[in-house]
């Protein structure tokens, strides 16, 4: 049985250029693009609630936020990472708290992930390292690393931090198709997974940390058991590169965005695609579920990419 999603509204030309990344908080949606500013949207209004002007002069390729909506981080094409804080209530008032600039020869900083309460920030570099920072220590000029995972020098295109319980792990997906899973407590490599062969563009831990979903240019979505490291499922159906993945809150559904502009929703129970949305043929750089609003009967998700538009979808309910 497939599910039906309806487009509820769009914000067209949300940014003047490609939207590369999205982050959600309980109250807001943050979008980052090739332009220098980051925009903060209310879930319903078409006008941004806040614009972080000139956040990244050369454009911003990654943005992420903690689940509680108090900490966000963004990475720019110039190689710099900025940390933003907000009081977390409905008023969008993000302010810059500090930045991290690695020495030039270490390579630019690329993908980002924050843990649930925003205490830890994982950041990949072009030369294949994954640095984990304590966000409390990030200020104008300094930041202390609490962990530093070395890989084989291959560019890490994506990174994720697992939920804080039952276990804390870091996963990274690399240009050569390798996926590494590290334990944050022992700071050791737990699994090195090589099945995808082609660039891995998204890795995401399921909410209960049982699975790691990974996908990229191999055009399949692989599910790995985080404990054993075994591949437990292959979700096939995308005709082009998979750019972005996101689990819904319960871990029942996985959302994916593809280079050919298609978004798909996959049922974990059935291990198959239950809905496909085709909005345009332009690359979807980012797809995200929105947090479940109290009292709402259905979940929503948002897609964004080369079309420069934010498109919101809601599941069509029975009647």
């Amino acid at each position, binding site marked *: 049985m497939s599910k039906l999603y309806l487009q509820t509204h769009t914000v067209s030309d949300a940014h003047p250029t*490609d939207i590369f990344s999205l982050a959600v908080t309980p109250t807001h949606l943050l979008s980052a693009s*090739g332009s220098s500013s980051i925009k903060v949207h209310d879930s319903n209004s078409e006008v941004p609630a806040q614009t972080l002007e000139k956040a990244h002069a050369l*454009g911003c390729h990654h943005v992420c936020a903690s689940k509680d909506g108090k900490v966000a981080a963004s990475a720019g094409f110039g190689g710099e990472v900025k940390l933003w804080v907000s009081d977390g209530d409905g008023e969008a008032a993000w302010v810059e708290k500090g930045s991290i600039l690695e020495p030039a020869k270490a*390579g630019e900083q690329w993908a980002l992930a924050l843990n649930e309460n925003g205490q830890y920030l994982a950041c990949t570099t*072009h030369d294949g390292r994954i640095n984990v920072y304590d966000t409390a220590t990030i200020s104008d000029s300094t930041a202390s690393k609490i962990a530093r995972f070395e890989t084989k020098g291959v*560019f890490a*295109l994506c990174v994720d931090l697992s939920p804080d319980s039952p276990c804390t792990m870091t996963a990274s997906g690399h240009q050569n198709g390798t996926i590494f899973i590290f334990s944050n407590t022992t700071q050791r490599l737990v699994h090195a997974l090589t099945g995808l062969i*082609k660039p891995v563009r998204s890795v995401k831990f399921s909410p209960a940390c049982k699975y790691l979903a990974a996908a990229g240019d191999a055009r399949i979505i692989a599910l790995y058991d985080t404990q054993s490291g075994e591949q437990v499922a292959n979700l096939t159906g995308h005709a082009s590169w998979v750019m972005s993945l996101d689990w819904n809150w319960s871990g029942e559904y996985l959302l994916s965005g593809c280079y*050919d502009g298609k978004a798909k929703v996959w049922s974990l129970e059935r291990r198959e695609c239950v809905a496909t949305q085709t909005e345009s043929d332009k690359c979807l750089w980012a797809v995200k579920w929105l947090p479940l609003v109290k009292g709402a009967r259905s979940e929503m998700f948002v897609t964004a990419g080369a079309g420069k538009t934010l498109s919101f979808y809601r599941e069509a309910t029975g009647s």
Partner: protein
Amino acid sequence: MEDDDFDDLLAGVEFAHDSSRESLTSAATDLFAFSDGYDPMPSATSGEFSVIADPRRSMYSEEQAAVCFSPRHYSNCDEVNDERPYRRHAPLLEKIEEIFDQMAADLTNERPELVITLKSKPTSSSEAAKEGADQRTQKFRRICFPGKSAEEAWRFTVIIRILQLIHEALSKDTVISKRDIYYRDPALFGNQTHVNRYIDAIALTFSTPRSSLNIAAVAKGLITGAALFTRRNGSTLNVASTAEGEGTLVLNLQDILCVNLDRVKWILVVEKEASFRSIASSASFSAKLAEQGILITGKGYPDIATRALLHFLATPSPRNGFRAPPVYGLVDYDPDGLAILSTYKDGSIALAHESEALRVPSIRWLGVRAEHIGREGGGLHSDQGLLGLTPRDRRKAIKMLERAREGEEKCEMRQALQGMLMLNLKAELQLLDAQAGGMVELLEAGLSGEE
């Protein structure tokens, strides 16, 4: 060659110490030969008219240093007075001679050092634009002899030697190529790059296009298609009539009187010679090309001759029948490909002072674009030919982004670079050849819009 990846113009060059002294001596000897028995070639040939000039004067005699220009010439060219080489080049010759006069004076007065001041190129296009408005912000660099280090002495020698060769070329009114200059003293120059850099620096210092120093790059570009050139000597050249798929070496703009573009509907610029040949010889496209198009390649970063010719073809003027056919660029999907496209479009940074007459701002980016890769249809094999960006590629792309930042955020170049960095992939033009009909399809789709 126009790759603007060069670091500081004058820093960090390897050089040939051993030859410095010897070459300086020989350069100096040559110069004093000028002053002693200066006996310029009495006649020079330029195009169809010949001119006899006798700019007989001593560079180093105090009495005549003040004399600006008093050539006695016996000329038979009533109709083209202004074309007399010596007069045409007089301002530049004077500038060069001024430098040597100054040095002669310094030597006579037993000053401890000889000094040459060069302008440095600005580091970005936007800076260059600003400097155009305000000359006072130009950066200057002093190079002394004997100087602080052997390297500085070498630099000084190189500059003197090049100035001397330029002086020679100007006073004889012959055009020499960069390669000629290098071969005049390979032991001194070490390699061609040094020569190119210092020539550009000298042109910048004199605020003049390189061509007016009578220096040409060796033409490396190729052209073919439906254009009919008329040379200054009256002969015509049909660039399509050469051997199939071969192309003609790009013509020197100074030799062209006019061009007939009546049949031309588009101009296609390709990055690589291989693609040039495969397009020009393709069964389905060569006929179309001979009827309605022009195909040009600069073989990588284009030289000035190629860019000048493209500018000439694409900019309406009496000499091309006031035509402005649309220009399309076909380059690799990588930072160098985009940099090459931008060299055609906006000029190179190394030659920012003379880009105006070389730019083709209307050039459109036909491919390879992100849309052409990663598509369904080819299955897994369509990803073949894609490579990850190297660290050098990424650094280059970020540098280019930095330069583009003050431009519009929506500018195509900026978006293309960002998309490339996100994908972390590059693709060569040959990728299109690998797909059945890939190249022809792309060309027909891209070029048909203009018919």
